[in-house]
């Protein structure tokens, strides 16, 4: 399935990626090949197989509502590029002033 450059741009926007023109072409080709590969699954006859959202054959893997210790402050921030006021510091996203629910 051949993707258009518009498809690539849309996916890039969702992934917050800025691509050069050469990268857009390369991604179009690579993503098209990946989709073709996945598309081969469509050749299988799955009429007799019930749809499933999971392949583990497990259900109801859950736990009791009890509190266990959380990370220490050192553990929390060991990979953080910047920390202030006990928080991770990031650049404010464009157009972002409020929380998303």
């Amino acid at each position, binding site marked *: 399935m051949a993707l258009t450059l518009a498809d690539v741009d849309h996916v890039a926007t969702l992934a917050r990626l800025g691509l050069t023109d050469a990268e857009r072409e390369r991604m179009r080709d690579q993503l098209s090949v990946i989709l073709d590969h996945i598309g081969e699954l469509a050749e299988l006859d799955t009429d007799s197989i019930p749809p499933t959202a*999971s392949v*583990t054959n497990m*259900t109801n893997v859950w*736990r009791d509502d009890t509190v266990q210790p*959380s990370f220490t402050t050192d553990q929390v921030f060991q990979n953080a590029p910047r920390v202030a006021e006990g928080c991770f510091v990031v650049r404010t*996203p464009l157009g972002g002033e409020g929380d*998303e629910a």
Partner: protein
Amino acid sequence: MTLAATELEFRTVIGLEVHAQVLTQSKMFCSCSAEYASAPPNTHVCQVCMGLPGALPVINRSAIESVIRTGLALGCTIPPYCKLDRKNYFYPDLPKGYQVSQYDLPLCVDGQLTFTSEGVEKTAGITRVHIEEDTGRLLHRDEGGASVSLVDLNRSGVPLMEIVGEPDLTSPVEARDYLIALRQILRYIGASTGNMEEGAFRCDANISTRTADGSIVGEKVEIKNMNSFRAVERALIYEEERQRKLLAAGESIPQETRGWVDARGVTVSQRTKESAHDYRYFPEPDLPPLTIEASFVDSVQAALPELPAARKARFIESFGLGASDAELLTLERETADYFEVAVGSTTDRARQISNWLLNDVFGLQRERGLPFDAFPIEAQQLNQIVELVEAGDLTGSGAKSLLAGIEPGENARAVAERLNLLAVGDSDVIRAAALETLTANPAAVADYKGGKKAAIGRLMGDTIRATGGRGRPDTVRAILEELLSE
């Protein structure tokens, strides 16, 4: 073509989406504490709720149970099979890059909420109730002109349920009353605190306007950022008016998201995050689906407490209470429980207990700055005090003093004796006080003797005061009448 707004008959269509935090000890998919409001930032976090690679979530069974309980309280069907899905978007408060939610197979479907609005009973459909996880919180800071955000992940992964209502509401007042009733039910069944100020109960509204004859139909507008019942009502009143004016002026209403600005009392168009609706849902591979057995649903149903509307009706029916008193007594489950313990087996005392509770016990509760579920006296003590009043052993003012002076575990009569509050029925004591009062109030005596029998009220008040508030009213009246007829 421009028409004056008054020439068109408009209809408003409102549907509400509520996000309520599910009341649990731990988070939705990990064992970190779900308490985020009071904890220092990033102290209740781990690999799962920080979204570190390779961390595996495990479902909190209690949260699932609470959502099912909510669904049952709203008359929903609980499908036997459901799954969780990933909703993908990038934002710094969402460390995994996706929110675990439910897409096409939610926990609860097809319910309804019955509520009272302006004295009329209404029913609105509930489309679905599903489970998801909350995001972290961002604090915005200005750093020498550059805007940065501080990320606190304590709230990340706290269980949240989304309750999606059908567009069955026809006015801003109805929307407010629907929310009040929904919040009351969530609190009754212990599924959520419903605390709007703390963000534990949030509402988005979809509102559209059309003409009664269907000739003009406006697009649906989503309103966000309403942080109180009052804000929801005000925002919808504003938006209803705005949309009507646009349609009346022959303009169209674009489908958009608008934010309520409480301080200014207006809604403003929000720049939507680009492609925000391209969430690319897919089944969450880290979480096996859920099979909800009928026996599980039955056990949750059996444990469901009596809901507010039913309880109010029973209070009116069984205790002979007025509708507004029954309403006040059932607003909170804790109040209704307290009232029922106070009444106990003495059903004939219920009305008096209701009066004393709503007026004096609540008054004392407010005076002492107690929360709604902390009562200044024990329920049994309230019953004992009302019993003393009914027996004539305690005057109204004596009962008020007793209410304020009684300590936990004490017997009302014993305290009344110790504090010297028991009513005085001794005619000599009352006669002396009555004579004193009559001498001091010649005008009232003259009024009474001149035919204004109501003047006895003032004389009774003064006489009772002269007995230190303890003179039995019936005895006082009898003695005054006797003296006045001489």
